[in-house]
């Protein structure tokens, strides 16, 4: 690539310059702090090389929060630019980069890792396991995600960000129309992270199927575990499609193939098709675990078992199959035959049936219950009406003939923000607050949490509800500005106000993390809310020891921990400890992933030697791993006794 050295670092934009300076200062501060407090070894040994699913979960969540911030700032920049007509806050090129990165970051580097973080932390506990099936892979998954994320994120300071939308449609994304490194960042960043996601899929699929504790049959698993299992199944079969599609576009951009190009009889439509073959199941990958989280929380704070558990299971299994049969609704307007559009229109509408069933099941879980309005419950309750709005507009979009009028408009933008924010983001907040005491040994402050909730909910509706009308009034998505005579000014301005309210709520949320760390009372039991129903609350201390359970629990029915409490059994009274086998930490995943990042960065700039060096390095780490016969270690009975005695003291 004939990239001049003075074009390597992006200059000339005050916003980007500001970001560059703060990133630089932030990194210096972090390095200085780690050195000053002599925490490097601790960081490396206790966290970065850890195969403990709980620590990996927390690292995922921290990265996701960081990405929520980055993606949120992107969103606020877009809303600022659209607040009034003819705004000149961002030029069109910059706006295009911002919305492209906003989409990718929010879906791939925020929603998925946030949920995978919660899954990592909670699911092994809920099934009564000591760790996942493949702890080494789990660490590798985290690292590939992290490196992919880092590679994608540096694009805006080095070389320029992708600017062809988060969907990267060809031929716009081919070299002819998107020269420069931007789109390469997209392809390689997502590719590296995608490998990690696929491994997570395999890992948790096998973990849930094979590592359940005694007595926990499939139909005795918590709903969150069920949704995770199905999500992982979808990941296993959807992510390879993305892998191939990205590789094919990478070949087009780097190695001269002509699959999606205007040259050589390529077919740009094929990219669109493959992207959505993955893209639609992806939507369910980020929504199903959310359904699981809401199921847990609603049932906990209504003090009732989940209504129609079997129907819930059937509905998620149905969704998993249907999710692979609806992808065409993302491009009804591509001129497909009427038969194709009709078929996919009907399958899409059909998916609303199992989803509708779930909504009513949640409502009736609370029927004749005793509902307490804690913050996690508030988020879950707000999910129902907001998600219904998103869902019904989804059915409207599914009607292909009508979709021709909504497609590519703010109606669509509003729809998917309604489902993704009220589904996924609410679930992330709800799940994090709900399981926060399990992770950190203290609750988040409820009062501040309620402020966050109300500001966010109001901001969310003020931001996105007007967008339905903007869409119906003909405002296409992805335009960087509009004219006064378009008549969209008022609603756009309202929408921007709402976006800033959400931003405010996020800041207060972060403050709450700090506030609670300083002032919240520490938890004394493993069951922080006093209402826990599943095994994650059955550990001996508020923060589970690294082996999770001193003695693995036995399960006889749904909601096992609730059962234990009803029967007055104390799980932890059992003192017949045996040595526990645990996996060893490993530095291989971190090194391997960094090498992937090294190779990826080289390929972004067509520096093939870097790609080759990186690839050789990756193979060497694989060989090292192959010859590694470390089987882990045993925790002695004395150590277990000591740890258990210290629990919650």
């Amino acid at each position: 690539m004939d990239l001049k050295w003075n074009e390597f670092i992006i200059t000339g934009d005050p916003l980007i310059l500001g970001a560059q300076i703060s990133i630089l200062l932030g990194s210096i501060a972090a390095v200085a702090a780690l050195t000053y407090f002599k925490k490097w070894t601790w960081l490396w040994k206790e966290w970065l090389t850890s195969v403990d699913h709980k620590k990996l979960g927390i690292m995922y969540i921290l990265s996701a929060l960081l990405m929520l911030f980055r993606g949120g700032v992107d969103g606020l920049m877009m809303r600022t630019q659209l607040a009034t007509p003819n705004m000149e806050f961002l030029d069109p090129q910059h706006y295009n980069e911002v919305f492209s990165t906003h989409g990718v970051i929010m879906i791939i580097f925020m929603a998925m890792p946030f949920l995978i973080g919660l899954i990592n932390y909670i699911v092994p506990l809920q099934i009564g396991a000591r760790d996942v099936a493949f702890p080494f892979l789990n660490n590798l998954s985290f690292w590939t995600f992290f490196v992919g994320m880092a590679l994608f994120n540096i694009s805006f300071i080095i070389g320029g960000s992708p600017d062809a939308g988060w969907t990267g449609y060809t031929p716009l994304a081919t070299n002819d129309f998107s020269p420069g490194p931007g789109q390469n960042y997209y392809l390689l960043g997502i590719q590296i992270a995608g490998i990690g996601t696929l491994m997570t899929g395999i890992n948790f699929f096998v973990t849930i199927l094979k590592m359940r504790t005694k007595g926990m049959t499939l139909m005795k698993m918590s709903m969150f575990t069920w949704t995770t299992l199905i999500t992982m199944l979808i990941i296993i079969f959807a992510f390879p499609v993305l892998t191939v599609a990205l590789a094919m576009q990478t070949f087009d951009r780097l190695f001269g193939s002509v699959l999606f190009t205007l040259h050589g009889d390529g077919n740009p439509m094929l990219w669109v098709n493959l992207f959505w073959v993955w893209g639609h199941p992806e939507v369910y990958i980020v929504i199903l675990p959310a359904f699981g989280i809401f199921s847990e929380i609603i049932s906990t704070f209504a003090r009732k078992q989940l209504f129609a558990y079997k129907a819930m299971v059937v509905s998620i299994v149905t969704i998993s199959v249907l999710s692979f049969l609806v992808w065409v609704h993302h491009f009804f307007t591509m001129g497909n035959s009427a038969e194709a559009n009709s078929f996919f229109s009907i399958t899409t509408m059909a998916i609303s049936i199992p989803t509708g069933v779930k909504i009513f099941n949640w409502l009736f879980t609370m029927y004749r219950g005793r509902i307490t309005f804690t913050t996690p419950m508030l988020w879950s309750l707000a999910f129902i009406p907001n998600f219904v709005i998103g869902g019904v507009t989804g059915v409207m979009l599914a009607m292909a003939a009508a979709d021709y009028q909504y497609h590519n408009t703010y109606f669509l933008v509003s729809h998917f923000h309604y489902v993704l924010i009220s589904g996924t983001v609410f679930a992330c907040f709800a799940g994090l607050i709900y399981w926060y005491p399990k992770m950190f040994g203290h609750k988040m402050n409820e009062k501040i949490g309620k402020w966050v909730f109300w500001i966010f909910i109001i901001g969310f509706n003020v931001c996105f509800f007007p967008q339905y009308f903007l869409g119906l009034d003909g405002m296409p998505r992805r335009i960087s500005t509009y004219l006064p005579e378009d008549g969209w000014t008022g609603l756009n301005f309202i929408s921007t106000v709402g976006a800033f309210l959400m931003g405010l709520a996020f800041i207060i949320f972060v403050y709450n993390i700090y506030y609670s760390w300083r002032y919240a009372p520490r938890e004394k039991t493993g069951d922080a809310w006093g209402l826990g129903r599943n095994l994650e609350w059955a550990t001996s201390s508020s923060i589970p020891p690294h082996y999770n359970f001193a003695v693995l629990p036995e399960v006889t029915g749904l909601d096992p921990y609730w059962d234990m409490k009803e029967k007055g059994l104390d799980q932890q009274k059992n003192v017949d400890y045996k040595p526990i086998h645990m996996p060893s930490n490993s530095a291989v995943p971190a090194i391997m992933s960094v090498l992937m990042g090294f190779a990826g960065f080289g390929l972004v700039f067509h520096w093939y030697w870097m790609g080759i060096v990186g690839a050789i390095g990756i193979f060497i780490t694989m060989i090292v791993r192959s010859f590694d016969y470390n089987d882990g270690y045993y925790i002695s009975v004395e150590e277990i006794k000591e740890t258990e005695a210290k629990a919650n003291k």
Partner: protein
Amino acid sequence: MQRENGTFVNSGKERKGSRRMLKKLKPLSLLLFLALPLMLAGCSTPEVLDPKGPVASQQSDLIILSIIFMLTIVAVVFVLLTIILVKYRERKDHDKYSPELHGSMLLETIWTIIPIIIVVILAVPTVRTIYSLEKAPEPKSAEAASEDPLVIHATSINWKWVFTYPDEDIETVNYLHIPIHRPVEFKLTSADSMAALWIPSLGGQKYNMAGMQTTLYLQADEAGVYDGRNANFTGEGFNEQRFKVYAEEEADYQQWVEEVQNSAPELTQYEYDNLLIPGVYDDGTAEFNGTHLQWIDHSKNAEYTLEAWDRLGYEPKNPHAKDKSQNILPEDEIPYYQQDNTVDYSDEDMDNNEHAHASHE
């Protein structure tokens, strides 16, 4: 009961807090529910729901039908949620608490069957409309029935629109005139990026793709000026890729055609190729005698644009490059334009949509 056990009951303070929350929750859900009609009343009718032709009105009818169903569903859920939250919130005398209730065959069947019925009710008109939109709108009167649809090729070029009237042998940039009460058959293609032709007042959009041809039927029944634009993101100048549609009486339309035929300059290949260079059209709109179909139909040759760039000396550049200037050669320095390159795509039979449908086994 076990749940009377101290650990399970929340402190009184917290309970008071939750009741406060509940009071706040109610107005919010009401607000949400009322917002829709309020907003509808507050603004003028959105473009999509204010159709100016038969295609848009079919779609608008379908949309309104679906909105009615959806509002009903939303209402049911909101009311149910409100009732449940009010009735079963935690309070001192929770006599209604029945934790053993975790399923009801009857209820589950009801809320599985009803959505199925709704989906079926919505699927029938949807499918009917999908098929109906593949054909030109039915003529309203017998005399109109004799007229074929007006054929217009709509070609998207980064970031402008070229409209070609093959029968009239004229071409316009960034605006078009159409007669009212007559179906227009748009033949959509793109010289480069994937775009979507969208005139909300007249009907929904469809993609323009290089190397492909898609067909979109639209019709205006009311004279007026309508906004049209590219709805699918095509890069830097996407914003500006918009056009005006002048729908007018047949006589006025004919007069406009004649005017263009008589007064507009001849389209040269060099000039057309220059249009293919990505950019916003500086002059706003233009009209030409003759069409680009004499050299190229982008639905048959996707590579033409890239070849034209080569000829002219245009090179795509990194958007972050410091020097983005281009050195476009003048016409007389390019031998290619000194020769006759006419292929004339306009003569060929373009109406083989059926073939395209039949081509898959």
